[in-house]
């Protein structure tokens, strides 16, 4: 052959430069380190929130009482009553609600592939409200003696069941249909709630408003046992699905090619997250914003890998709601504010700051 043989291979093209987009600020921190730091912070925040109130104790005092209940020991009965009987249950409920809502928020956002999804996107909140408001407006006899919590859980279950039936197509859950069904069912249930609110006596209105806006002020130990077991177990279970959620957000086909049974995964995740959201609605009312915002906050700070986002969202959500609850009872003593008034006011500015500094959003 006369053609000049090519003796050197052309150098491969240089890779494009990292144009502005950079990993989230704390994405390179190893997960165990962030877990330990946030875990320690949660303990401190819980102790502080138990110590602060109309009567304020030192951190050492509240630690001593907790220690005495766990390991045995002498306590001052008056202090014990305030801290152990009143404050600790509500602080723990706030932590549980924060963790549960943040994790179900992460799961549902991934599941329906929508950044606006929150734990209540499938009608849990609207359904729970109908149940609770029925009992509050018409009295305990209205639903065969069910209390507010029981009625709320019943309503939430009903709503999710309905959304579930409407959201499937040929035996497959379709994310878009699921979201639309959730919106429609929520509207219907909300109009029932609104109608009942208008019909009820004015002095019931305040209690109903307060419930709808979420609060952990009614927390007591007995109720905490059931809610605690359900929320902790489901939340822990959900945090194990990080790898599969990572696969799921790359699309159904791609997840299938990675060996994920997409149909089954959707079902398990919906049942678990609805259970958590339903129980939390029942014991703490409709606490909003946490389940929507904390997932984004964690992603913007630690990166979008669900293996990290799930456990970190649980801790951040817990810390966040304990602080919000502390504010709700200390900004205007002796009055208490519902949580929803503060969740957004307190969190939105920080969220806006994070959103603006994150350039990777420009590439999505």
């Amino acid at each position, binding site marked *: 052959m006369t053609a000049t043989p090519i003796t050197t291979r052309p150098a491969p093209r240089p890779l494009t430069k990292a144009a502005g987009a950079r990993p989230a600020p704390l994405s390179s921190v190893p997960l165990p380190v962030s877990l330990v730091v946030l875990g320690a912070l949660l303990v401190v925040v819980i102790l502080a929130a138990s110590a602060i109130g109309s009567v304020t104790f030192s951190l050492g005092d509240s630690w001593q009482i907790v220690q005495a209940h766990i390991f045995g020991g002498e306590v001052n009965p008056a202090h014990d009553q305030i801290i152990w009987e009143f404050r600790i249950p509500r602080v723990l409920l706030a932590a549980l609600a924060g963790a549960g809502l943040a994790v179900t928020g992460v799961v549902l956002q991934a599941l329906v592939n929508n950044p606006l999804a929150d734990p209540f996107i499938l009608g849990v909140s609207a359904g729970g409200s109908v149940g609770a408001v029925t009992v509050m407006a018409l009295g305990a006899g209205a639903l065969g003696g069910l209390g507010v919590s029981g009625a709320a859980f019943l309503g939430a279950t009903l709503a999710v069941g309905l959304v579930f039936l409407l959201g499937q197509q040929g035996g497959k859950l379709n994310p878009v249909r699921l979201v639309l069904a959730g919106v429609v069912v929520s509207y219907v249930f909300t109009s029932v709630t609104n109608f009942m609110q208008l019909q009820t006596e004015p002095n019931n209105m305040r209690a109903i408003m307060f419930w709808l806006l979420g609060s952990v002020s009614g927390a007591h130990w007995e109720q905490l046992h059931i809610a605690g077991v359900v929320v902790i177990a489901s939340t822990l279970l959900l945090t194990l699905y990080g790898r599969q959620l990572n696969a799921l957000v790359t699309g159904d086909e791609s997840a299938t*090619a990675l060996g994920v049974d997409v149909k089954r995964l959707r079902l398990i995740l919906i049942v678990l997250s609805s259970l958590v959201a339903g129980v939390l609605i029942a014991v703490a009312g409709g606490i909003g914003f946490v389940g929507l915002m904390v997932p984004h906050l964690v992603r913007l700070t630690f*990166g979008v890998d669900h293996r990290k986002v799930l456990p970190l969202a649980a801790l951040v959500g817990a810390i966040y709601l304990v602080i919000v609850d502390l504010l709700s009872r200390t900004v205007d003593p002796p009055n208490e504010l519902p949580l929803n008034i503060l969740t957004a006011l307190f969190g939105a500015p920080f969220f806006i700051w994070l959103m603006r500094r994150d350039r990777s959003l420009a590439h999505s």
Partner: protein
Amino acid sequence: MKLQVNQVSVSLGGKQILHDVDLDVAPGEFVGLIGPNGSGKSTLLRTIYRSVRPAAGTVHLGEQDVWGMSARTAARHTAAVLQNCPTPPGLTVREVAELGRTPHHGMFDRNGHTDREIVDAALARTGMADHADRIYGSLSGGERQRVLLARALAQEPKLLVLDEPTNHLDIRARFELLELVHTVGVTTLAVLHDLDLAARSCDRLVVLDGGRVVAVGPVLEALSPAVLSEVFGVTAATERHDDGIVRVTYGARPLARAS
């Protein structure tokens, strides 16, 4: 590993998409699957990576029936690089490649030392090792496809299935990607849209039209002027040039017939 598709038929929504399709890929071979839009190419791939169950027929990988395995076992044998794979732009390159380890772990396992080595090797083979910590969303189209290929390699597949991997890539990135797949050396079945690219890079071609296999064989046989005219509707010739490369040359008036 040898892939054997035997008399596969698929119906979706009451419409028959594939009719008794036979296809096989020998170990180490690079087979191209071509055909006009809507001829059933992607659906055929879906029966192979276990997304659409055939109404009739079998898919065998080695001696095993793909549809007799669990989804996870199948994904340890077959990896796919698909079109429209909405990878979250915030994931780092390494995290995307780590997705490939999904079928190798149960719920309680965490990635270990071996996984890290496999992912490192996959990134190195695709030339993305120096960019492991970059954000996926900041990469060019060609780089993204290389990362998705790294993800597939991290699955340690015996069979690689590619659905139009060169779509939307510029010309140099297309050649780079196909050369990369060749050097990887895994048994490959690839849907390719660009006939010239298919002709020069595949060992054999399978031509699909209306859900049926209409031609199969070495490039020059499968891509005959008759097939080009009847299936693709263009006047063109395929010939092996002096440098050993098969090229497709389109006619002066390439529209084969007024339709």
